[in-house]
């Protein structure tokens, strides 16, 4: 046996290192049952470390546990007590509860406190245990002579329980308060304060009582942890909000904030910094102004080398950003992103800051060639962190419908930069190699793109800039990714959409179209492809659709060439597996073919013979895409659309739909295909235009008002000559020279491309690495400009109008928060995921189930419960005695009286009455024993009282219990 115990000990060690030992569970049990203490201990250790819920031997262990719980030696007793929390199951809890309870009165304080914690764990899986144990635990707590360490343990347990169901512990408040003031045990005080923080919301009067001691502790305690918990308790308990006199509340708030500030400042103790930020994070929800006073120290923390502190500071910054500090805060973050980029390959996660600006390009180059196997692992965190930062930047800027953004030029530049810095989404989990579920690979780049799109839609004045930015993004993506690789950036979708939708404002539409056509064959995702198809058509229409330009031979040949190119690109897509793409491709191909015919059929105008360009080109195609402007719509607007009268969605559209459908199979296509397409597309402009059923050709003749309308707006840019545009650009560049986030467009394009080619040759498929040289270029610039701190803040508030979301009357929460639609989707998804995951995670499975089942939500008053139960038992005894008598009476009288009662009335009261009545009857019948009757009546009335006062499930439960017992009696009767 000794050998076995030693072997087991070694096995346990191996288990710790990662070897499964579930096969040995029976041996564990064997050693557990050894009579020798030191062997037994090894056995129990084995059980703690290796037994799981599904370990079958557990059932066999029950008796052993019970036996050891009843042992005389305290050391032996504490073995099963310490083991039970690890192996507990509801059935095990049920069977060991009776053995554990007496241990609460054990003479050893050590056993007592271990037992009560074990009881708490029992209660988590088997809530009934708490009901039985609570009175005893409470007695222990109230006993002033109890060992202080037991009291502390009780407080710990109560604190755990109190965070879940504080209501039950309000009656304990006086005793707890006493402990807080008198004990002088810091550990316990911390727990008590935590407990009180969850009690105060329920009992506002506590606040007044708590405030003096807490303030006192804050002012006097030398222990930082206690100080922090006091502040935390004040914050969490809502004392800041609920203090009656405003002056007092202000005073305490200022005191707290000052102490916290001191904690951040204090000689660089990172832990205090961290907890202070945690506390600030809680205050910021209610008192943002107090926190924003501390902006300086908090911003310091953003640049901390410690990622935990940084994340906390980031959280905080999100809450306190205003239009005044947005730009500096975002620049800080951007700087961080940038400096983390080149370093990510060789640096460890979490230490991405502090990259010296002096690091040469060579270093980055060598890092690139370093083996990437290890890096994939190390990259995990910084990627997450970068995504986090980007999301936060977006959140801060777009908050309250961009109310904080003063300079949209700057913002668009930031977005452009962000697109480059967004990490490539991982489609593969680095650890397992398994495909992540689609929800998890949220592409930040896509969000940045969405943001750009939002700005383009909402801020009219900035549209031209946004379009330029989109163009830039497309160009850059094209040049960055090696030929043959698919373009995967999520920003592409929005960029392409912007290019298409606002193609009028494109500086060089030909180039953009060129870019689009290059991109289309390389786009992997069908949804982006579908957008790209549309955009191509839109850009084409804006290039070709000009009415004013004379229809010269040159123009004719140019357009037919263009058409041929587009058709060439589109044609392979007609067989695309994605239906949406296929449909759009087919439609456009047919339309463009038709156009090509028209173009070739229309002779060019010469000097003497003026020819109009084909109508299809100037009227039909542009009219497809111009119409009412697209505006952003509030999230909930759809909900507010009133249901039309008489709309019945269940009613079939056509009585004989099946026949109609089968007919369509037979019918040969007679009409001109183009017409179909035209009709289809003319249904898109809102119904205010021409009735949509009119054939396309009638529409061609109509002058299109809408077209004029939306051209007008954009006209400024479209008629500017190239040199004026260039001048404007130069002006802009001049203006933006100092802006760290302004990226000179042509410059980048020229410089980055060759380097990229080199890189592409060097390292092939490592996609994200390609972006480095661009960053390096910018980095220098940044370092340069930031070094000159005296940058004047030129931006006076730009006169831009940010369109609000369109919504319908009575929209509840729609206005101004359109942004929700994109960014709040994520937290929602997260929280959903968390529910899924928490089962897998370390804890919470047991406790999670507790909060469901362990909270029978009625506030049990355990004491009264107990009293009632005792009374009930007494009453039960009486009833039983009466019943026996009655039985005798029944036997004697031979009446079927019992049947009445058996017709089970569950209501206790009536039951009781019935019982009493019967007792009386029995009494009458027998003519003896007046006393029992009285007792029964008393019991009944007591029970009724109890029922009236206590209410709730416990009462019902006991009623049920009694009913069953009575039924049993009845059964025996019959």
């Amino acid at each position, binding site marked *: 046996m000794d050998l076995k115990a030693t072997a087991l000990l070694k096995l346990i060690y191996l288990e710790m290192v990662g070897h499964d030992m579930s096969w040995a569970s029976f041996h564990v049990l064997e050693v557990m049952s050894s009579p020798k203490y030191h062997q037994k201990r090894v056995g129990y250790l084995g059980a703690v470390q290796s037994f799981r819920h599904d370990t079958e031997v557990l059932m066999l262990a029950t008796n052993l546990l019970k036996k050891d719980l009843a042992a005389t030696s305290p050391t032996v007793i504490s073995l099963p007590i310490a083991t039970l929390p690890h192996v507990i199951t509801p059935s095990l809890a049920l069977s060991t509860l009776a053995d554990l309870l007496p241990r609460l009165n054990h003479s050893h304080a050590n056993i007592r406190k271990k037992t009560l914690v074990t009881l708490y764990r029992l209660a988590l899986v088997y809530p009934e245990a708490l009901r039985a144990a609570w009175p005893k635990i409470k007695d222990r707590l109230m006993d002033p002579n109890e060992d202080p360490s037991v009291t502390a343990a009780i407080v710990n347990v109560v604190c755990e329980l109190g965070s879940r169901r504080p209501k039950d512990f309000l009656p304990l408040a006086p005793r707890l308060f006493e402990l807080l003031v008198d004990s002088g045990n810091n550990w316990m005080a911390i727990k008590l304060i935590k407990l009180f923080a969850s009690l105060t919301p329920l009992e506002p009067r506590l606040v007044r009582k708590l405030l003096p001691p807490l303030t006192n502790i804050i002012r006097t305690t030398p222990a930082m942890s206690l100080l922090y918990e006091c502040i935390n308790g004040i914050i969490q308990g809502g004392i800041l909000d609920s203090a009656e006199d405003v002056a007092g509340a202000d005073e305490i708030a200022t005191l707290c904030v000052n102490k916290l500030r001191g904690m951040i400042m204090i000689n660089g103790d990172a832990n205090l910094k*961290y907890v202070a930020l945690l506390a600030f994070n809680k205050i910021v929800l209610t008192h943002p102004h107090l926190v924003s006073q501390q902006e300086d120290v908090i911003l310091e923390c953003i640049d901390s080398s410690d990622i935990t502190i940084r994340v906390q500071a980031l959280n905080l910054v*999100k809450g306190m950003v205003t239009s005044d500090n947005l730009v500096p805060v975002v620049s800080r973050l951007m700087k961080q992103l940038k400096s983390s980029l080149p370093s990510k390959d060789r640096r460890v996660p*979490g230490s991405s800051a502090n990259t010296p600006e002096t690091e040469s390009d060579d270093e980055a180059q060598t890092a690139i060639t370093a083996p990437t196997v290890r890096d994939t692992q190390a990259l995990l965190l910084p990627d997450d962190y970068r995504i986090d930062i980007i999301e936060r930047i977006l959140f801060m800027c777009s908050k309250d419908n961009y109310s904080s953004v003063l300079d949209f030029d700057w913002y668009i530049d930031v977005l452009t930069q962000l697109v480059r810095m967004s990490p490539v989404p991982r489609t593969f989990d680095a650890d397992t190699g398994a495909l992540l579920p689609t929800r998890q690979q949220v592409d930040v780049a896509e969000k940045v793109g969405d943001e750009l799109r939002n700005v383009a839609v909402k801020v009219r004045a900035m549209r031209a800039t946004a379009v330029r930015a989109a163009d830039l993004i497309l160009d850059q993506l094209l040049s960055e990714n090696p030929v043959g690789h698919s373009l995967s950036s999520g920003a592409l979708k929005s960029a392409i959409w912007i290019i298409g939708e606002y193609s009028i404002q494109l500086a060089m539409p030909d180039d953009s179209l060129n870019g689009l056509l290059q991109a289309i064959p390389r786009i992997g995702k069908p949804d982006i492809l579908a957008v790209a198809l549309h955009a191509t058509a839109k850009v084409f229409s804006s290039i070709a659709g000009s009415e004013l330009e004379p229809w010269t031979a040159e123009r004719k040949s140019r357009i037919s060439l263009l058409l041929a190119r587009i058709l060439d690109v589109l044609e392979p897509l007609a067989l695309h597996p994605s239906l949406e793409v296929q449909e759009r491709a087919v439609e456009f191909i047919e339309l463009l073919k038709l156009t090509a015919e028209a173009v070739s059929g229309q002779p060019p105008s010469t000097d003497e013979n003026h020819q109009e360009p084909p109508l299809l080109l100037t009227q039909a195609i542009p009219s497809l895409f111009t119409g009412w402007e697209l505006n952003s719509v509030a999230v909930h607007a759809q909900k507010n659309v009133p249901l039309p009268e008489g709309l019945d969605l269940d009613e079939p559209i056509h009585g004989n739909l099946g026949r109609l459908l089968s007919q369509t199979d037979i019918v040969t296509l007679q009409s001109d295909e183009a017409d179909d397409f035209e009709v289809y597309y003319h249904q898109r402009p809102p119904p205010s235009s021409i009735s949509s059923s009119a054939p396309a050709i009638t529409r061609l003749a109509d002058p299109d008002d809408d077209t004029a309308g939306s051209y007008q707006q954009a006209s400024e840019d479209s008629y500017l000559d190239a040199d004026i545009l260039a001048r404007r650009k130069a002006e802009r560049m001049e203006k933006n020279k100092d802006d760290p986030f302004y990226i000179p467009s042509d410059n980048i394009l020229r410089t980055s491309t060759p380097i990229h080619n080199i890189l592409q040759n060097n390292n092939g498929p490592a996609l994200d690495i390609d972006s480095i040289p661009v960053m390096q270029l910018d980095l220098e610039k940044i370092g340069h400009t930031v070094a000159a701190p005296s940058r004047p803040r030129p931006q006076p508030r730009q006169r831009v109008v940010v369109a609000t979301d369109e919504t319908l009357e009575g929209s509840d929460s729609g206005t101004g928060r359109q942004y929700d639609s994109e960014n709040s989707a994520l937290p929602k998804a997260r929280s959903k995921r*968390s529910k899924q995951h928490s089962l897998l995670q370390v804890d919470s499975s047991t406790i999670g189930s507790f909060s469901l089942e362990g909270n029978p939500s009625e506030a049990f008053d355990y004491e009264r419960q107990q009293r009632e139960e005792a009374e009930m038992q007494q009453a039960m005894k009486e009833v039983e005695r009466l019943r026996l008598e009655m039985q005798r009476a029944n036997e004697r009288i031979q009446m079927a009286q019992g049947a009445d009662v058996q017709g089970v009335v569950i209501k206790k009261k009536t039951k009781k009455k019935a019982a009493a009545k019967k007792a009386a009857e029995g009494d009458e019948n027998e003519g003896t024993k007046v006393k029992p009757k009285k007792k029964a009546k008393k019991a009944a009335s007591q029970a009724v009282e109890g029922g009236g006062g206590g209410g709730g499930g416990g009462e019902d439960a006991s009623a049920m219990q009694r009913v069953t017992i009575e039924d049993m009696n009845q059964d025996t009767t019959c």
Partner: protein
Amino acid sequence: MINAFLVFNGQGQPRLTKFYTQLDTSIQQRLISEIFTLVSNRPAGSCNFLPLPPLLAASSTSHTSTEEQSDVPSLVTYRHYATLYFIIISTTTESPLALIDLIQVYVEALDKLFENVCELDLIFNFETLHATLSEMIIGGVVIETSLDRIVAGVRAQGTVAKRPVNEGRSTIGSGMGIGGNFAWTGRV
């Protein structure tokens, strides 16, 4: 409550693992290695709190509100002594600073039991490690924080083994000992 108490060395080899909920061995190992990656890459002078490892982070992220769910492990506290890392994973009901002190108490207790504790002691007497821990934490709840009582409790079990023979080794323990390197000293 405390969800797990872990000790591993600078190479990531576990020296003590105690999970207060039942977990598969493989998941335990994954968690340990994730935490080790986090912890071993901390720059000097950073705070004793870790971001949640990916395995745990999936259940609660830093900026979604975790206030309601006090059940989910949300705090990873660590402390570094000589060659060893001590980790506590806990929920929000524990005070972060108190946990740091708790680790300190644990190490001090070991130090008292072994007289200048070092990593080898932990390997050869890992039963004592468990015994000490179970004098301090039962089922994830702290039951004792007084050094003397803990030591007395372990000694009462009478099992503090003598050291393995080679006395010649250097005691790293002096480095592991009582670190006064933290600002709050108001512990009990």
